[in-house]
Every structure is written in C-alpha cells, then in structure tokens.
C-alpha cells in the first residue's frame, strides 16, 4: 500500500476541515431558513452534541488505522480532529447555556450538581478543554512525558461521552447504545495502553 506523503497529508487535512465545517454551515443555514423545526433549540443542542461525539469516534479511530495500515503520518491529523471535538462540544454547551438556560448561571450550577447526566457531560467538557489548551506544539514539548499522560484522559471521555448521551435521552436508547458499543470496542483495542496508564496514575 502506498504511504501517505506530506503532500497527501496536506490534502487529507483540508478534507477533514471541510468535513467538520460543512455540518456547522449546514446547521446555520437550516436554522436561518427555518428548517430546524418550530423551536430549533433542542435541534441545535442535539446536533452539536452528536457532532462532538462523532468527532471523538474519528479521533479514536486514527491511531488504530495508522497502525493497521502502517501510515505513521496519519497520526498528525489527531490534533486537528481532536480540536473539532472541542469545537463541537463548545457549541453544544454554548447552545445549552444560551438558548435553553438563557444564561441562568445559578440554575446551571445547580443542574450540574443535581443531574448526573449533566455532571458527566461537564466532566467531558473539562477534559476536552484541558486537552485543547495543551494541544500546541510548544506546550507539548515543555510538558514532556506528562503530556501523553494528560492526553490519555481522552479514554475517560470515550467512556463518559456515550454515557452522557444514553442518560440524556427520554426513550430512544438504540442509537446511544450503538455508540456505547463503538466506544467500548475502541477502548478494548487499547486495553494494554490503558492498563499501563492507570497503573502509572496510581
């Protein structure tokens, strides 16, 4: 099989940007043209949440694919996709706070404490924020070995995000169950790494 060249990587990154930006543009058009329902609030929140969870699946697919097909350069797309997880998660939370809660901050903190599914979602967002803030090369170099250890927290996200999804729905549990299955597979594939990481954390 042909190796991914730096030039190929450039185009692949462009394609990834396009495939993560297009859904956001589509959402904006749907909302502006009144095609997101009579009250688009839940639509927007669900849509951006699904975007975040799908981007997380893609992030976690990159290294298995790179290994299986011996495409080392592919690993360089992880930061890009990971930042889209953060971008979609930020939109998801911004929509929840601004459109649903209408900036009732006191109420937000009360809800985070009272509702386990919101707490789980908030934990995911906090992890995503730390990973995004430390995603710059300069910081990565400064952090040395600690960087990888911090970024392994993505596994915790992979566990919590589908739980948050499953827990948040009223009755349509088939789709969230599929996501739980997918994430369990992605984590199972990394069981050795995760074991070592957890051992070090102790």
């Amino acid at each position, binding site marked *: 099989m042909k190796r991914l060249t730096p030039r190929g990587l450039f185009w692949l990154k462009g394609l990834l940007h396009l495939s993560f930006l297009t859904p956001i543009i589509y959402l904006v*058009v749907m*909302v*502006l*043209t*009144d*095609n*997101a*329902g*009579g*009250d*688009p*609030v*839940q*639509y927007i929140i*669900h849509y951006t949440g699904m975007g975040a969870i799908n981007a997380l699946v893609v992030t976690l697919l990159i290294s298995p694919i790179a290994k299986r097909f011996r495409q080392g350069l592919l690993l360089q797309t992880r930061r890009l996709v990971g930042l889209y997880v953060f971008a979609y998660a930020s939109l998801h939370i911004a929509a929840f706070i*601004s*459109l*649903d*809660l*209408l900036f*009732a901050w006191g*109420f937000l903190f*009360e*809800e985070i404490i*009272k*509702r386990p*599914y919101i707490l789980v979602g908030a934990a995911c967002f906090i992890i995503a924020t730390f990973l995004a803030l430390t995603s710059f090369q300069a910081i990565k170099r400064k952090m040395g070995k600690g960087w990888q250890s911090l970024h392994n927290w993505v596994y915790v996200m992979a566990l919590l995000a589908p739980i948050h999804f499953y*827990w*948040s729905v*009223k*009755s*349509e*549990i*088939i*789709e969230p169950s599929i996501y739980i299955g997918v994430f369990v597979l992605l984590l199972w594939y990394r069981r050795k790494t995760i074991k070592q990481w957890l051992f070090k954390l102790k």
Partner: protein
Amino acid sequence: MASKKGFTKGISNTPSWSLKENEVTPESVFSDRRNIIKAMGLGALGASLPGQVQAGLFDLFGSEDKPPFAVQGLDYSKPNQFQIVDRLTPEDKIIRHNNFYEFGTSKQDPFENAQQFQVNPWELRIEGLVDKSLTLDLNDLTTKFDLEERIYRLRCVEAWSMVVPWVGFSLAELLKMAGVSSKATHVAFETLFDPDQMPGQKNRLMGGGIHYPYVEGLTINEAMNELPFLAVGLYGKTLPPQNGAPVRLVLPWKYGFKSIKSVVRIRVTDKQPPTSWNQLAPHEYGFYANVNPQVDHPRWSQASERSIGEGGLFSAKRIPTQMFNGYGEQVADLYKNLDLRKYY
C-alpha cells in the same frame, strides 16, 4: 400561510391563571428573523432549499411530490373564562415543534412525516361503563358539539411551554352525553394504531421504543372537571396531524404527554388504566403527571420553564413554573388527599 390572530385580550372575567400585563413579553427588540435573512440575501435560498431537497428525495424514491395536509376553518365561540391575557405562541412554532413519537422522535419529525395522514374515515368510540356507547365520525366531531376556543398554557415535561389557542369541546360534555355509570372510577384513552400511516409504530428506532398504541388515562373526577378539553382545532382551523388530528385531549394542568393525540377510543372503567410513559419508565413518569415545580423529573428541573413565544432564537424567556401550571384554582381540590411527591 398562517393567519396570525395576534393576542387575545380584553376580558371582564379574568381568571386567576392569566398573566398580568407587565408579565407579558414586551414587543421583541430583536429584528424579525425573516428580515435578517432577507437582508443577508438568504431568503431565496430558504424558499428554494426545502422544496428542492424534497423534490430530490422524492425523485430518488420514484414517488411524486404530495401536497401538505389540508386544514379547514371552524365556527366557534370564545367563552370569556378560557381566554388568557397572554401572548400566543405563533402557529408555525406550534405546528413544527411536536412530540408525537408515532411520527418520529425528533421535534420536527411529526411535521415532516405526518402530512399524508388520513383522518377520514375516523371513528372515535366511547364505551365501557357508560349508559350508551357512542361512535363519532369525523363530521360528528365538529358538528355534534358547540365548539369553543380555549387558550391554554401547555407545559412539556422537558421544561418548555407554549400558549395555544385550541378549538373543541369539553370532555365532560362528551362523557355526559354517553352517561357515566356510578361504578366508574377512571377513563382510558387510546391513540390510533396504524403502522402503515405511523412509521414510529412500525420501526422501534423511529418510535422511541414505546409500546403502541399509545394509551393514557384520568380519574373520573379529573375527567369530569371543566378543564379537560377535546380539541379538534388549532388557531381557528381543524388540527394538523402533527398536533393530533382529528381529535386530541388537552389537559393544561398536566405535562404535555398526558394530552393524548389522534384518539380513537375512550373507555370508562373501574380500574386505573395503564399509561404509555409510565409503562416505559415508571420512576420518571407517574400516572398523574401534574405540573409541579416542587417535584423534579430526574433529568429536568421543573422549577422553571423556557417559554416559546414570538421572535427568534434568543427571544425565549425562562419563567418560573406554577403549581398545576397555574390552573390550581380549577383542579387543586382533586388532589386534596394525595401526596403529590408520591403520586407524581
């Protein structure tokens, strides 16, 4: 397409649950969303997009473009005690934001999937512990009773709310016509079961895992109260299918899911009937489902609600939820001896 009636006003006999003038949303300071879109030159895009997308899809599946569901105008009176001094939720929001899992679980699914729904012929049967069973057809629903408009607040368990002008008749009137036996303790309701027309009943993924047909129930005392309403219309016209055509129940002091849609059967019984959401998740949805700001749902605080009114995305308001959705004066007596934390 919707003829906006604006907001109904001027009542001598103001009920306790009406909002005061100063609680009403001020004229939106936001420009109308459509003007913004027009200014951005997106209007043409908006007008062309759905049609084209739809046409494209229909082409793919080889069927022709079908017209949307046709609604007809209704004659009705406006009894004073049921007019709220409040801003109505615009019609296009009421008909495009629906929980009607028979047509899909997302809010816009019913609008998209219900337009071909057949309401004629229709049979609504009233049976069980009654003096005489009744069968009403589509015509009976709009001619057998003096229709009236009632503006009711609708509060969804998901913590959003609307103000809706329904047209219809009171449930008690219908039950009196059938003659309720003294042995009766409850009334059970059932939605149409027709998987060919209701894709959510055919496909578990689409129907949210609910056991169909959808069923609901009331105690006989609740049913004979003045508030329970059988709506056959919305905004002065017959109901669109996504709102429960041709006839639905409206119970303004209970969470929206109790207000069963597209009813085909009303059965007077001497037992508490099963109810769909209670069957699915009994710890989350009780039989009574009275709006109660003190008792939270596991996922939604019920202390406040997002009121869906006029204007764009950012013009909604969060308002405190009232006990019995503000209809306590009419219904609180029904629950005098009931622990509402236990019987949620």
